[in-house]
């Protein structure tokens, strides 16, 4: 007969305990689980990515239904246990289901703390603990509107960022002077606040909530200084309380949590408490890593190992908000007996502080660059004497031992027992064994087989380095790498530094940023040229030699070395005069192919390079300019006939398209930019797969963006609605300018938007009129230098060397 093991609560901690229990072989237990939440075990840590839309619930399931079947586990979903009968060794659920136990594990987690202010029970006031809360928030976010998050700790800020991503405007109320004061010192708290505000989250510190106001649902939050913040949704994330009620009712020893010894046994030896509801050594833990250690102890104990004992431990914290790097561990309060080392780099947005006592690290706070977090943490755990590296400690591991050690070498040098993943307690040896043994080549593979970096993800970088160290070139991460082999900087750093350091020429960039090659390569030079053109209009002199041939000679090179020529046809409109000129040119220069393009233009293919200026001269004479069909810049604005001709047309789509094209032609952008304007939602101009598309409607103009119809196919996203043509134009122009300033070279709009997030784009070009105006004006200014027809310039002699041979020798040359 198997012994009966019953578990109350199906969270992360007991899930881990069961895994451990089954790892050692067929279990001596038959297992029954009761879970108040009507679902399987999932990664609660990753609720925030679900809220922000970056992940789905399916992505974060730890044990699917199949797992329970495979292990013969009886899982009661949606059953809350209301009674533990210790006499009869039996539990009973709300619905009346019962189960007897030989061993019982209480793993009921925590309950969110709710401030009992008036109005806290109003509909629209939520907490943040489980998937139901996330669904409720996502539903509330559908109505856009304003969210107030009470609590500026880890949970509150993740909720705020998620709601912002879902399209709400967000205010965070925090009682303390700085955010996340339990994990961060004031300096890092300040940097964090600034970054959140930059993204459009309003942060009010020293805010005491007095009342939540509302009738049938929440309407506003009232602070005790009298301020009233209107709200369509209130999320309370002010802390958690161990869920010890069941234990208390059953007569177990309970303090803050259910009291257990270091083997996780409660005052009744048949009952264990595990996870956030347990209090061990006077402490209740609220992060996964120590809970997983507890789980291991319980599993060991259940398998008969009575020596395993829980050891208190520090855990590191990270904020899981995309794009914010933040790491803290240990004790970082100031004190008499402590020393600290601080590094600040304001332009790079980096702040690092390491706190030492008796030359040993007792705490660290890192903001902006957290790569060395695990290294500091390791020294903290090991009590490493830091005196030998005191001078360079703060610069991190790469700077130890004289010459900078590259991170790869550092990882390669770690012993096999070194812990890589704190959450899941996975050491290096286990990961490298899995990589070689199972033939893994991807991060996901390692996650699936070892769980390393599968929980909070903070050790992802280390795992990737292990992959690279083990596989060499066989590992090719999707992560963005340096711009090219000439530099260690990525595109974003280069762009930032160009502006921050006022670098206004390619040699200046290469000098200041310590390029490793004398004059770059074919990857970085065009990128730098674009960045300088975009960032210093009127000051930077375009470097033709750093442009691809197409942009240098303003035509498209073809596979046989001839060129194709596409004149501009504004909004796709043309007329007999233009068509005659095109026909004449085709005849005169014996142009072999004439084709209509997808962008509503006419393409003359197979033009000899030396004929280009003459071809352009004839086209210019008929009033046509370069169609820029070769440019990483504004290409075409496609239109339909709209209200001019079409019986469905709601607005003058052709006119708007022409207006946009006349306004924006000549502009360089990170990658090609194609637009379209459709006169009604029937969308004949196919605007919803363009970089920017407009759909005219009766009430005005719906502005779409971030579509793709190339290697990738993607429908656009709706950016906003504009009432007038003027407003539509201003928004489109501001959006383009934002993209010009933030995009990485060759990054199409849809990739850029995915990277920076729609909320930040909205905040810059839609919601904030003033910001929109700034971007608009910067574009207008830059256009004063850009709207010069490159064909006309070349017809008039510019770059003549491009179009003529240097010397020509006829056949008799050898005899000369």
């Amino acid at each position, binding site marked *: 007969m198997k012994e009966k093991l019953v578990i109350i609560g199906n969270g992360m901690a007991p899930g881990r305990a069961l895994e451990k229990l089954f790892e050692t072989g067929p279990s001596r237990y038959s297992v029954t689980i009761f879970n108040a939440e009507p679902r399987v075990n999932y990664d609660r840590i990753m609720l925030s990515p679900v809220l922000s839309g970056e992940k789905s619930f399916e992505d974060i399931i730890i044990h699917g239904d199949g797992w329970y079947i495979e292990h013969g586990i009886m899982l009661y979903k949606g059953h809350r246990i209301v009674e533990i009968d210790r006499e009869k060794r039996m539990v009973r659920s709300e619905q009346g289901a019962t189960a007897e136990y030989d061993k019982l594990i209480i793993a009921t987690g925590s309950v969110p703390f709710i401030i009992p202010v008036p109005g806290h029970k109003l509909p629209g006031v939520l907490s943040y603990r489980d998937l139901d809360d996330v669904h409720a928030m996502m539903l509330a976010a559908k109505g856009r509107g304003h969210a107030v998050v009470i609590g500026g700790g880890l949970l509150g800020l993740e909720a705020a960022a998620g709601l912002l991503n879902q399209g709400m405007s967000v205010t965070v109320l925090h009682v303390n002077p700085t955010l996340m004061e339990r994990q961060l010192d004031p300096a890092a708290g300040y940097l964090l606040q600034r970054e959140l505000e930059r993204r459009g989250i309003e942060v009010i510190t020293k805010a005491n909530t007095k009342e939540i106001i509302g009738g049938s649902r929440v309407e506003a939050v009232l602070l005790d200084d009298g301020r009233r913040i209107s709200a369509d949704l209130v999320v309370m994330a002010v802390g958690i309380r161990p869920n010890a009620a069941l234990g208390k009712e059953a007569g177990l020893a309970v303090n803050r949590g259910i009291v257990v010894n270091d083997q996780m046994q409660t005052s009744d030896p048949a009952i264990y408490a595990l996870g956030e509801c347990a209090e061990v050594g006077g402490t209740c833990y609220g992060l996964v890593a120590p809970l997983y250690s507890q789980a291991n102890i319980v599993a060991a104990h259940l398998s008969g190992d009575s020596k395993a004992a829980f050891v208190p431990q520090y855990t590191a914290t990270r904020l899981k908000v995309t794009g914010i790097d933040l790491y803290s561990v240990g004790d970082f309060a100031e004190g008499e007996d402590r020393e600290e080392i601080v590094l600040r780099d304001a332009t790079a947005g980096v702040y690092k502080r390491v706190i030492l006592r008796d030359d040993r690290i007792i705490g660290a706070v890192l903001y902006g660059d957290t790569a060395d977090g695990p290294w500091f943490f390791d020294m903290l755990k090991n009590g490493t004497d830091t005196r030998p590296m005191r001078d360079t400690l703060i610069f991190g591991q790469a700077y130890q031992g004289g010459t900078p050690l590259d991170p790869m070498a550092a990882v390669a040098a770690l012993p096999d027992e070194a812990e890589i993943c704190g959450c899941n307690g996975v050491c290096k040896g286990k990961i490298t064994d899995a990589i070689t043994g199972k033939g893994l080549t991807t991060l996901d593979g390692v996650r699936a087989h070892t769980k390393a970096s599968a929980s909070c993800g903070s050790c992802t970088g280390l795992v990737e380095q292990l992959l690279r160290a083990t596989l060499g070139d066989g590992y090719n991460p999707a992560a963005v790498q340096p711009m090219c082999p000439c530099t260690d900087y990525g595109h974003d750093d280069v762009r930032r530094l160009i502006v921050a350091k006022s670098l206004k020429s390619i040699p200046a960039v290469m000098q200041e940023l310590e390029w490793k*090659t*004398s*004059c*770059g*390569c*074919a990857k970085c*030079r*065009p990128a730098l040229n674009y960045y300088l053109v975009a960032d210093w209009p009127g000051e930077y002199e375009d470097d*033709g*030699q*750093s*442009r*691809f*041939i197409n942009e*240098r*000679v303003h035509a498209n*090179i073809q*596979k*046989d*070395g001839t060129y194709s020529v596409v004149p501009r046809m504004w909004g796709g409109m043309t007329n007999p005069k233009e068509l005659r000129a095109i026909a004449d040119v085709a005849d005169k220069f014996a142009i072999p192919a004439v084709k209509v393009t997808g962008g509503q233009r006419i393409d003359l293919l197979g033009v000899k390079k030396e004929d280009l200026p003459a071809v352009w001269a004839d086209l210019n004479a008929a009033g046509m300019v370069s169609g820029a069909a070769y440019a990483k810049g504004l290409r075409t604005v496609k239109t339909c006939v709209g209200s001019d001709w079409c019986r469905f047309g709601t607005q003058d789509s052709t006119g708007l398209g022409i207006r946009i094209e006349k306004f924006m032609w000549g502009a360089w952008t990170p990658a090609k930019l194609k637009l379209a304007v459709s006169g009604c939602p029937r969308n004949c101009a196919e605007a919803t797969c363009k970089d920017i598309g407009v759909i005219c409607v009766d009430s005005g103009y719906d502005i779409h963006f971030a579509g793709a119809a190339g290697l990738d196919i993607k429908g656009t996203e709706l950016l906003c609605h504009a009432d007038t043509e003027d407003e539509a134009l201003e928004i489109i122009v501001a959006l383009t300018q934002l993209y010009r300033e933030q995009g990485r070279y060759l990054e199409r709009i849809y990739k850029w938007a995915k990277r920076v997030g729609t909320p930040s784009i909205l905040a810059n070009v839609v919601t904030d009129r003033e910001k929109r105006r700034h971007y608009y004006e910067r574009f207008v200014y830059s256009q004063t230098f850009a709207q010069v027809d490159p064909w006309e310039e070349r017809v008039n002699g510019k770059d003549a*060397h491009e179009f003529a*041979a*240097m*010397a*020509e*020798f*006829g*056949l008799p*040359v*050898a005899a*000369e």
Partner: protein
Amino acid sequence: MTDWIEIGTVQAIPRRGARCVSVPGGKIAVFRTQEDQIFAIENRCPHRNGPLSEGIVHGGSVTCPLHNWVFDLATGKALGADEGEVRTYPIDVVDGRIFLAADLVAVAAE
């Protein structure tokens, strides 16, 4: 004794650029680097005949405009993972005037 033929001046080629010399049967690409070194190679990429004179010139190399192979201008060898070689021609520069070996031009013409 090699016969040298003048093909033009260093000035006539933009820095980090190239120009072509037409010879019977083909084109020779003459490159000028940032440091004013002059190289001459066949204007035809061994991959798929890309016109190398149209490529981006960086250091002592050029990147083919069609599919980004990179060639060392001095040796004509493809760099990196690609394998291939483009023909090089001897060049002489005197007082900013560029000379090409006449007999080699003739060979190229064959």
